[in-house]
């Protein structure tokens, strides 16, 4: 299925919880340096898929291959991937700096190297001034940046993001979008971004994978999805919703539709 340019190849991945089939033989590929969004409503299986990719969940069937190596049964920290959780999962008793350097120290890096790397990562995400702040004293957007810095510090090839902006206000969300794109460009990292927000997926992604009831409805570039939606679900869930948003705004900004 995969080609030489593919960073990640997922083949026939299925997962069932009790009676419910959450993922139904899902197959797709992710290119090196690509920003892929997985878009779908709650319960469509996108978070389960993400957890299988990082190794926190075991698929019932199927394989995950990264750079041509089968990593289906590899431990989460041996996959060269990082994840940013929806709730950031920061270590609340540690400062922003300690959060970033904690894993580096565990990985037996010297104290000085760990500190330098952590400081550099906080600088990259624009949080140098907040290095000594505890998570509870940071805003939602700042907490998210700490979580990204913590993930980037371990230099993963692929970063998975599980609805990281769902708890942020609209203004912070918009600024975080452009920062995320900048980070991806400067690090050249492949990013897989899970969201239920159509607008977010269209604004960020090189390609979008639309999921419904554990299956892939369509995987393509935003332009192609707009031009030729694969089925009624994609048309209604994605495009109609987007159109409704634009229509509601066009009352106030008549030129928006063009």
């Amino acid at each position, binding site marked *: 299925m995969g080609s030489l340019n593919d960073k990640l190849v997922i083949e026939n991945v299925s997962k069932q919880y009790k009676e419910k089939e959450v993922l139904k033989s899902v197959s797709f590929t992710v290119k090196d340096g690509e920003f892929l969004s997985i878009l779908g409503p709650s319960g469509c299986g996108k978070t389960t898929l993400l957890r299988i990719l990082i190794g926190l969940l075991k698929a019932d069937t199927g394989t995950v291959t990264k750079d041509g190596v089968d990593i289906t049964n590899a431990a*989460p920290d041996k996959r060269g991937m990082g994840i940013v959780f929806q709730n950031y999962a920061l270590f609340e008793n540690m400062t922003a700096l300690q959060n970033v350097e904690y894993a580096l120290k565990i990985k037996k890096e010297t104290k000085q190297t760990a500190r330098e790397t952590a400081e550099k990562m906080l600088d990259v995400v624009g949080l140098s001034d907040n290095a000594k702040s505890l998570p509870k004293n940071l805003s939602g957007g700042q907490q998210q940046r700490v979580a990204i810095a913590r993930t980037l510090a371990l230099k993963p090839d692929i970063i998975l993001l599980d609805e990281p902006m769902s708890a942020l206000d609209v203004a912070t969300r918009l600024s975080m979008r452009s920062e995320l794109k900048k980070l991806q460009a400067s690090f050249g990292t492949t990013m897989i971004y899970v969201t239920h927000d159509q607008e977010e997926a269209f604004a960020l992604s090189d390609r979008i994978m639309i999921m419904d009831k554990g299956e892939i409805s369509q995987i393509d570039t935003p332009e192609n999805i707009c031009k030729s939606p694969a089925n009624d679900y994609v048309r209604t869930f994605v495009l109609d919703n987007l159109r409704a948003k634009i229509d509601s705004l066009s009352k106030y900004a008549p030129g928006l539709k063009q």
Partner: protein
Amino acid sequence: MKHKSISRTVIQVCLALFFIVVVIAPIITMFSRINSQSFKSLTSSADFVPSIINSVTTALTATVISMVLAILASFSLCRTHIRGKGFFTMLFVLPMLIPSISHAYGLKALIGVNGSGILSFILGDKISVLGFWGIVIGSVMYSFPVAFLMIQSILQYEDGMPYKAAAVLGIPPLRRFTGITLPYLKKTLISMFFAVFTMIITDYGVPEALHNREFGYTLSILMLRDVENSDFGAAGIIGVMLLIPAVVAFSVDMLVPELSQSGFVSETVEEKEGRVSKILAYVFCSVLSILILLPITAFIIQVFAKSYPVDMSFSFSHIIDTMKSGADGFLINSLIYSVFAAVFGTVLAFVCAYMTARAKSKITRALHLMSITSVAIPGLVLGLSYVIFFKSSPIYGTVFIVGFANAVHFFASPYLMMYNTLGKVNPDLESVGKTLGIRRIKIIIDVIVPKVRLTMYEMAVYFFVNSMMTISAVSLLAPPSPQPLSLMIARAESQIDIGKAATVSLMILIINFIIKLVITLINRKRALK
């Protein structure tokens, strides 16, 4: 990954086996000792039926009084705008820090036995606290703080929005009470009834000190007599009988849906600003505080009076006598028992709660059930089952069996404290650790333990304070040496040495109060940070 999940399953299975050995197997063994002969000998005893009647009537009366007082006290503190709420709360829970038998002593000192109490002395009348009403009052004193805390904790977190909506709709206050407050409190009141009733009916400290010939025995006294006579079959039958209300209480807790914990609090219920309600609340709380403090003050005075109540001149003679009779040694024993229970109990409860709160499986569900089952076993019954089950084991008659019994007896509440706290800790911490290559144990030590530290302190204090004052299980299990301080009270009772009993009660009160105060201050300081 597989290796780690296997080690977790091994820990879970070991914990489940531990509970089978320390809770389920002893109780089953106690059941197995019951036979038709012991049943016949017990039922043919002239004391049996009167003991049942005495136990049920005193427990029922005391439960109703305790609950009414607790409800009034909680409403006064939670629903009116009075000052000194912290102070009143501290006074209301003060009786929790001393053994039940000490309340009986306080009452003896205050009201008196055939004219020996200060009230008898003042009134010049030979009033006696012994008998039905004495036991009821003592049981109310002992059980009131528990009832108060149960209802106060629920009232504090009631959502105020339904009341606002009802006020806007013009629903009168009485209808608001019957339509909103009562349904909200329903389960708590049912649980409270059974919990308080169980506490009182299984207690033997108060009835032991306050029964007389006319009143007769209660089931708990009768059970102790049977154990002393090595009639474990008869004691086992009483044990089963005493288990019934606790099992009902446990079943109610498990089966009745918790209305008071569903949903969230958008805003707290408004406190009444009215002058009349404030005055009533002040009067009630003040009178109740005085009633609580009087018996405690009486036994404190007893400690320092030369010959209470005849010669009230100040003296250290009771303290000196108590120390001479080896109280310091008993105190050290108690501290060892209590520290053991606090450390062992807290670690065990944390590990158990971690296993059940942070992962769901058939084993963890079974483990959760076993962990909270201990709450349904009265200390006296647990003690008896341990006597029967561990009698021929090497730990019988050692410090360890007392420590284990205390840790198991008081396990459920601290376990639930930690279970609830861990349930609120970010569920993805371990997952993020896995992806960053940090071992679970490191995440637990470096991240989760610091996060739940305050709860751990509270758990340790709960184990410590209760172990310091318990006399139920330890009275059956404690070896001749070393004996805990609380048992010295019972020994002083049998020697009619009231001064010594009062001194020991005061020692326990002071230690428990200091420990509780220190932890409260530490927690308050941390919470403010």
